[in-house]
């Protein structure tokens, strides 16, 4: 319980009605403001909302009602239309800086042709970095990438969409460049995992806790790398992940 604000019995009495959306606009605004400074009231509202949600299953027909299939068609076509718009935006922004958060978020959901464009954008960004301060290490890696020993791999979502690229050098060092992994809430972090050794039964080791706003990250692994994965974890990272990766790469 925070001491941000004292409990107010009058407002506490409204929490049930608040959880049912049964307040008028004025009272709702007062409770909204109250919840900002009162974690215990916030916790009660979360619990009561969970309870209210169960009510939705009470009507006999509700729990087993199938989702209207024609409605999914409308949702999917709206998404497709937005992706077309995003492609046009991405095409206009091919030369935009990779650090432009808005551009990154706009281009986040892209179809194949837009992805090709964003690869061009990332290549431009990589070149810009090479010309920048951190020249030596990356320059070596890019040179290595042209050689049989060095390489670039894509970290991809479960649906195959490329989310980030990794340049791997023969000495086990690597550099990850984020393309489409969104900024996480402050209490989450991306974490990179290296799969080492046998491809069928790899040993999974953490290759770095990357923070919630991932742009670029350097890492180094010792031993034969067969794959990479990125998970979302609580801030600070974990020793062993229980999460499904948001992106993976196979290093053949």
């Amino acid at each position, binding site marked *: 319980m925070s001491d941000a604000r004292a409990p107010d019995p009058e407002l506490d*009495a409204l929490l049930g009605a608040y959880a049912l959306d*049964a307040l008028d606009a004025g009272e709702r605004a007062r409770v909204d403001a109250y919840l900002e400074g009162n974690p215990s009231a916030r916790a009660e509202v979360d619990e009561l909302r969970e309870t209210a949600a169960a009510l*939705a299953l009470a009507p006999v027909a509700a729990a087993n009602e199938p989702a209207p299939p024609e409605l999914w068609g409308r949702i999917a076509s709206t998404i497709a239309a937005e992706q077309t718009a995003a492609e046009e935006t991405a095409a206009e922004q091919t030369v935009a800086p990779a650090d432009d958060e808005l551009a990154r978020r706009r281009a986040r959901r892209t179809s194949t042709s837009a992805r090709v464009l964003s690869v061009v954008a990332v290549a431009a960004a990589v070149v810009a970095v090479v010309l920048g301060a951190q020249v030596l290490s990356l320059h070596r890696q890019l040179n290595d990438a042209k050689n049989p020993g060095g390489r670039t791999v894509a970290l991809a979502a479960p649906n195959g969409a490329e989310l980030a690229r990794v340049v791997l050098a023969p000495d086990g060092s690597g550099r990850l460049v984020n393309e489409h992994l969104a900024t996480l809430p402050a209490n989450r972090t991306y974490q990179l995992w290296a799969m080492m050794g046998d491809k069928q039964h790899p040993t999974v080791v953490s290759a770095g806790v990357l923070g919630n706003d991932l742009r670029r990250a350097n890492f180094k692994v010792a031993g034969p790398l067969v794959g990479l994965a990125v998970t979302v974890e609580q801030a600070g990272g974990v020793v062993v992940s229980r999460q499904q990766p948001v992106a993976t790469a196979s290093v053949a």
Partner: protein
Amino acid sequence: MVGVNETTGRPATTEAERRSASDHDLALWLGAGDEAALAELYRRHGGPCFSLARRVLSDRVLAEEVVQEIFLRLWRQPERFDPTRGSMRSFLFAQAHGRAVDLLRAETARRAREERDAFRSPTVDDDLERAVADLTEGEAVRRALATLSAAERQVIELAYFGGHTYREVAVLLEQPEGTVKSRIRSGLLRLRAALIDEGVTE
């Protein structure tokens, strides 16, 4: 362990794997732009969301708008779902209910509804009373509801399914506002305890 398929080194990609994934996993994939994860969440929760919105609005077309809007919003802003504050399902139900109530309270929707309601009983329909044999989750919720006093049930049902504010419920039932307000809260807290007993809520 990182849940990578051992033979391919890639995470779940097939329909079968998505169907067995948790809501939490699907939410993460959603954050990575996986439209199939949204489709799976829609398959799981779209029906009850639609059913709830239609019940509140008494209007199929408006209910479809609500469901379309909340799933598109989930797609565009998946970070608004915070798994530390509750389940994906209750998040979606709360979104559907809140949006339906907003529409209901818009004056035009209200007028249309009142015209329709002139032909219906103002009380909650009797679905809740209907006996069912199987031990579904809905059945567990109905048993939990049955542990409330009749007065608590009535105010909660009118507020939640009727989309009424507690002040409107007080007018409908000719009860003091303070009584309705406290019955809603005490009833919900009792319902929560009963749902925990039924194993529906943790």
